[in-house]
């Protein structure tokens, strides 16, 4: 839709050209959310497209995903064959409640910064031990784990003027054996629970719970836990108040599905 209060657009080509952040500014990534709702409080867009960040970079450390990487670009990526966790990328892209047209425009960074519980890029990058690089308004930068980046339903650690630059996925996480489960009230509906489990080469097990909860939660175990131990750990780690409540699922159902899907993941990975 037209954003009629916008009076100016900045199109920086380098970090040094980023304008001084002011009230009424907004970063423009893909724009799929920004242009889908009235933004009467905004008067300037700072377009990130001209920074021309490379969408994806693969090196010896792992995978770097630019904040402006689109869902379509991420889904089209082909990783090395020893990236056993690579199927998670396609699975999480398909957990995105969006048409193939939206895939071409919406960005990974936008999904993180929206910080919706059902954000599938949050699920993916937190499960893969992703680390966010944040450019600060004062010229500095800081790094923070994706699982700590999102703090609640549509809340995160970004301060005014902070800009999410990229998410780095370590190679070790990409080489883990993984299992994915997702549940929603309708076949292609918004996720009500999205869980990812993975086993590292040393046998340690990590379960990432998203969508069911207001923010991502990671449970770590030295080895694959038994059925009862896994259930107890979830019950102890996730208080009832942390289960999300909206039209896409009641908290008690999300809790039930979390326990069930976690058990399924465990059963898949024990084989």
């Amino acid at each position, binding site marked *: 839709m037209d954003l009629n209060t916008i009076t100016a657009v900045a199109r920086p080509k380098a970090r040094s050209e980023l304008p001084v952040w002011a009230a009424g500014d907004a970063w423009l990534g893909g724009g799929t959310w920004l242009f889908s709702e009235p933004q009467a409080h905004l008067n300037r*867009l700072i377009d990130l497209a001209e920074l021309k960040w490379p969408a994806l970079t693969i090196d010896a450390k792992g995978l770097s995903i630019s904040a402006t990487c689109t869902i379509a670009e991420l889904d089209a990526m082909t990783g090395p064959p020893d990236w056993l966790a690579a199927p998670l990328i396609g699975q999480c892209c398909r957990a995105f409640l969006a048409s193939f047209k939206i895939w071409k425009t919406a960005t990974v960074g936008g999904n993180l910064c929206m910080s919706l519980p059902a954000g599938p890029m949050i699920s993916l990058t937190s499960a893969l031990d992703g680390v966010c690089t944040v450019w600060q308004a004062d010229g500095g930068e800081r790094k923070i784990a994706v699982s700590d980046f999102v703090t609640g339903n549509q809340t995160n650690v970004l301060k005014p003027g902070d800009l999410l630059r990229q998410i780095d996925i370590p190679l070790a996480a990409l080489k883990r054996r993984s299992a994915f489960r997702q549940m929603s009230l309708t076949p292609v509906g918004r996720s009500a629970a999205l869980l990812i489990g993975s086993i590292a080469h040393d046998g340690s097990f990590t379960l990432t719970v998203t969508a069911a909860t207001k923010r991502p939660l990671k449970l770590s175990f030295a080895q694959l836990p038994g059925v009862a131990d896994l259930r107890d750990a979830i019950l102890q780690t996730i208080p009832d108040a942390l289960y999300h409540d909206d039209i896409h699922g009641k908290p008690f159902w999300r809790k039930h599905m979390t326990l069930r899907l976690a058990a399924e993941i465990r059963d898949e990975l024990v084989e």
Partner: protein
Amino acid sequence: MKFQINGKSFSQAPRAGQCLRTFLRELGHFGVKKGCDAGDCGACTVLLDGEPVHSCLIPAFRAEGHTVTTIEGFGSEAAIHPMQQAFVDHDGFQCGYCTPGQIMSAVACVREGHAGNEADIREYMSGNLCRCAAYPNIVAAVLQGKTAMKGA
């Protein structure tokens, strides 16, 4: 600013927060429809460098230097696009309001290989809503259009 729309050059500048849909309509491309205004219905679908996008979600200034194709850019009155003909043949519409967006998405769907079978078509065309519920006919049209586009 210069824009290439359906093969023609335009030099008007859009307003800062104007979306591509409004800009295109103000330039006379009324086949680009305003529907939900939020990226849900697909009525405003156009091709940007050949890729389908919801023009209501695209800032107009970002189309500068890129090619835009609207429904008016497909075929002519004398020789309409094979997908347009398929929608006519199968009555892939009732009121017709969503039809330009349906056809734009259908063409992209075929070009990108997402129209392998009915299930594929239903999934990939799910971002285009038809309040008249002409969906069975739309699916049949896309299947015919796919075949016809191969021969075109």
